[in-house]
């Protein structure tokens, strides 16, 4: 082949922006990157934790961030925050210093410091808050956080809130969001191969195989999908009992010409697909489809998303009650020709399912780009709507809190201690970051108030109280960095609408080095 001896080299090295973002584009692709670049983030603090979070959002390239904070850099701030310049920042506006040093990380990100507006004056301004994609807070006094949460909860189109709280080795965060549709959930469950409900072309192809007449090389390269469908035609009915299932597996192996035919071994390993029903995921049938006309009706979710989900519901209401075929085929032992042929069949079916799907889209929402429809169908098996509740709703229900303490005493104790310390600090009038003493009695009093009467507190509560009173206002560099990563990761998932964010309070215990979830 002369072509490969001296090929005419195609120079296709990507541009410098693609090269810069290469390692993350391999996760969320250009679709996720575009959403990231369009996002505007508001952070109501420039503490060490806040700047750590922002660092991990500026680096991958959000569009814009605003820090709203009227604090003056203290000696302690200058010691624990990497985005302040040591003693030379002391006495200056903390937010201005932080914005300047964060913006250095990425030229394509704009940053703004708002230092003259007190936080209290924006938490109730839906107008101001709605200019942003996501609002992040750190150790905001509970009364202000409640107002902010109420404001954002009041409008279905208001941005999501990521509320972060930390003291010493303990931390937690909570995402408050309106119904959040995720098309690309990157689920590890692969789409159905339709072995149990083969589409006509696949069924025809499999039936037409004369396995016993093939030459040995061809025989060893028939993909396991047609082998399974073929084998199914050899038994009177689908295997149900364990005995029938074992007999079916034996049947597959008996079709081998030679002992080492790996494609038949693969068919043997995948035999369960023959008797496992092609059921629709409950994330669709239970969590989405029944609610499309009620709590998921626009404006709860965007009109286009609603139209796509409606079309999907209609599609699955038709026989044989399956999702549109996904064009991706996993690798399997096969010759190039048989594999490409099979792949072509799935692609053709995908295209015809896509046309059917399109005809089922309700007329109202306007133009839906074709590539969005493709992406949606490709990922239909993993589509989710992430539905959450308002920040603090869990804590107002003493019974839920009481139950959580029984089920996961460690994590719930940390959560209660963190809630209590924020309350206590607000009551004492201590400003954020300044040293303050909080008594164990006071923390305990707040905790008791959040639990059903006469709840036995137990050892984990005592340990959590002991630890939280040790360092009530400490924003430790390592805890801040850990939160910086965890919170930014969740923020990226929310912004890109890819991967699945965490519901409930995510608890971080840096002593045992563990995380847990409370209030889900």
């Amino acid at each position, binding site marked *: 082949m002369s072509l490969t001896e001296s090929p*005419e080299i195609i120079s296709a090295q990507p541009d410098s922006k693609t090269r810069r973002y290469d390692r993350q584009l391999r996760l969320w692709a250009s679709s996720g990157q575009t959403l990231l670049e369009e996002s505007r983030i508001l952070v109501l603090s420039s503490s060490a934790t806040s700047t750590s979070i922002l660092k991990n959002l500026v680096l991958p390239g959000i569009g814009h961030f605003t820090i709203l904070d009227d604090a003056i850099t203290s000696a302690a701030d200058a010691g624990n925050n990497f985005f302040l310049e040591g003693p030379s920042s002391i006495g200056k506006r903390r937010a201005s210093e932080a914005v300047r040093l964060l913006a250095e990380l990425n030229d394509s990100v704009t940053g703004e410091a708002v230092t003259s507006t007190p936080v209290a004056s924006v938490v109730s301004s839906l107008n101001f808050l709605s200019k942003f994609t996501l609002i992040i807070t750190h150790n905001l006094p509970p009364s202000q956080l409640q107002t902010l949460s109420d404001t954002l909860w009041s409008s279905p189109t208001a941005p999501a809130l990521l509320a972060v709280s930390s003291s010493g080795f303990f931390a937690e965060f909570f995402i408050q969001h309106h119904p959040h549709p995720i098309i690309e959930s990157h689920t590890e469950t692969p789409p159905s191969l339709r072995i149990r409900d083969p589409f006509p072309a696949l069924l025809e192809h499999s039936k037409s195989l004369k396995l016993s007449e093939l030459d040995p090389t061809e025989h060893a390269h028939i993909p396991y999908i047609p082998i399974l469908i073929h084998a199914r035609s050899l038994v009177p009915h689908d295997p149900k009992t364990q005995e029938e299932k074992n007999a079916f597996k034996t049947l597959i192996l008996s079709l081998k010409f030679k002992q080492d035919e790996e494609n038949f071994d693969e068919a043997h390993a995948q035999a369960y697909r023959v008797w496992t029903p092609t059921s629709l995921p409950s994330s669709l049938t239970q969590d989405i489809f029944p609610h499309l006309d009620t709590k998921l009706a626009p404006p709860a979710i965007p009109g286009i998303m609603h139209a796509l989900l409606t079309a999907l519901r209609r599609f699955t209401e038709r026989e044989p009650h399956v999702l549109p075929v996904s064009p991706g085929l996993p690798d399997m032992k096969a010759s190039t020709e048989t594999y490409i042929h099979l792949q072509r069949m799935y692609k053709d079916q995908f295209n015809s399912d896509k046309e059917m799907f399109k005809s089922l889209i309700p007329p109202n929402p306007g133009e839906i780009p074709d590539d969005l429809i493709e992406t949606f169908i490709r990922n239909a098996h993993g589509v989710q709507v992430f539905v959450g509740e308002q920040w603090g709703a869990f804590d107002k229900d003493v019974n839920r809190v009481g139950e959580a303490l029984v089920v996961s005493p460690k994590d719930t104790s940390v959560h209660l201690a963190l809630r209590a310390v924020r309350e206590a600090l607000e009551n004492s009038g201590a400003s954020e970051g300044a*040293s303050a003493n909080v008594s164990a009695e006071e923390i305990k009093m707040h905790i008791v108030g959040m639990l059903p009467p006469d709840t036995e507190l137990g050892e984990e509560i005592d340990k959590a109280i002991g630890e939280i009173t040790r360092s009530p206002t400490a924003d*430790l560099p390592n805890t801040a960095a850990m939160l910086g990563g965890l919170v930014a990761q969740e923020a990226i998932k929310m912004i890109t609408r890819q991967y699945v964010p965490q519901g409930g309070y995510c608890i971080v215990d840096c002593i045992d080095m563990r995380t847990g979830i409370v209030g889900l």
Partner: protein
Amino acid sequence: MAGSNGIASQDWAGRYDHIDQILNTPGPRTSPAFMAGDGVKDFLRNQAKILVIGAGGLGCEILANLALTGFKDIHVIDMDTIDISNLNRQFLFRPKDVGQPKATVAAEFIMKRVPGIKVTPYFGKIQDKDDEYYMQFNLVICGLDSVEARRWINATLVNLVDPENLESLKPLIDGGTEGFKGQARVILPTITSCYECSLDMLNKPTAFPICTIANTPRLPEHCIEWASVLEWPRVHRDKKMDTDDPDHINWLYTVASARAREFKIEGVTWSLTQGVVKNIIPAIASTNAIIAAACCNEAFKIATSSAAFLNNYFMLIGTEGVYSYTFEHEKRDDCPVCGGESLEMSIGPEITVEELIDMLTEKQDIQIKKPSLSSGSIQIYLQAPPQLEAITRPNLQKKVSELLPTGGEVTVTASTLPFNLSLNITYK
């Protein structure tokens, strides 16, 4: 507080208010060994010396965290230079630094940003340094992307442990990430499970059967491997493929694309080509931040005794919610690095190798049959293969003391041993 090295004079009042809340008071679970107050602060800020291996995605984060935590004598080793694809997460580097050594640029940045911290860079390989070098540190933190380098430093630190010298035990804290997933672990050499103990937990990179690549390609990856594994050496002979050279990637991309067209396979792109041949692992700032923070937090707790430390493995999966799992990875008795038996033997200077072997096989407690013996690069006696047996056979009649100085280490392998036995020979 007054420091002995002059560095502490740069500590402005209130600098460590946050950390001092932890260092001034024990918590309910803090060990009694914790010296709250000046004692622990003096150790952390004026005495502790810590080594960071790797100044990449994890390394940049680790250096910043350690500096803010109050470690003031930090060393960093990295053999790489800065590439544009590092800039989405390695936040101590700017576009102007591309091409410069990571260790040097990172060290300078930290020293500029965090006053009073000394960061000593070394632009080179960890294997360049000897035991004496590693002996000087209290702790080692690793943020590496190479299995081989991790195995090396792990084995080096396990070998460093001398029961006579308490200072020789260096806690090794190891972090690693891949996309939204990562892990951090604490290794106390010879006490807990080591890196080698868990080698079988590693996901190995996908490898395709070579006959698939050659004859039945189905995926774009098969075409790319055909270009890199079969065509490159066939066409370019001994010229080494440099996966950092865009011209080489262009060549592979061109060849792979042509092959894909021939077989009607879709999906060969420049980026996929580069990803397959370089075995690129997705990497983002946030995951690195989590894992680096976990590592530094353990370093801080171990160095200060201010709280219990991780026992011994933390695993994070962030693709679906925040899932983590903390568990104790068990030490393996047959671990080639930290497992195996060790035996002190004091023998007469006249004892021959053959007599030593007889002594070993007669030892009831170790049940050894047909042992093979070596010491470093010296083969003392190998039972097989025949050529090596014949070459080493004359050694059987030699005195052990002719072959080995006193205190010499002998590696004994035999099919009856779980892995190996190490002998420390002294002469009566």
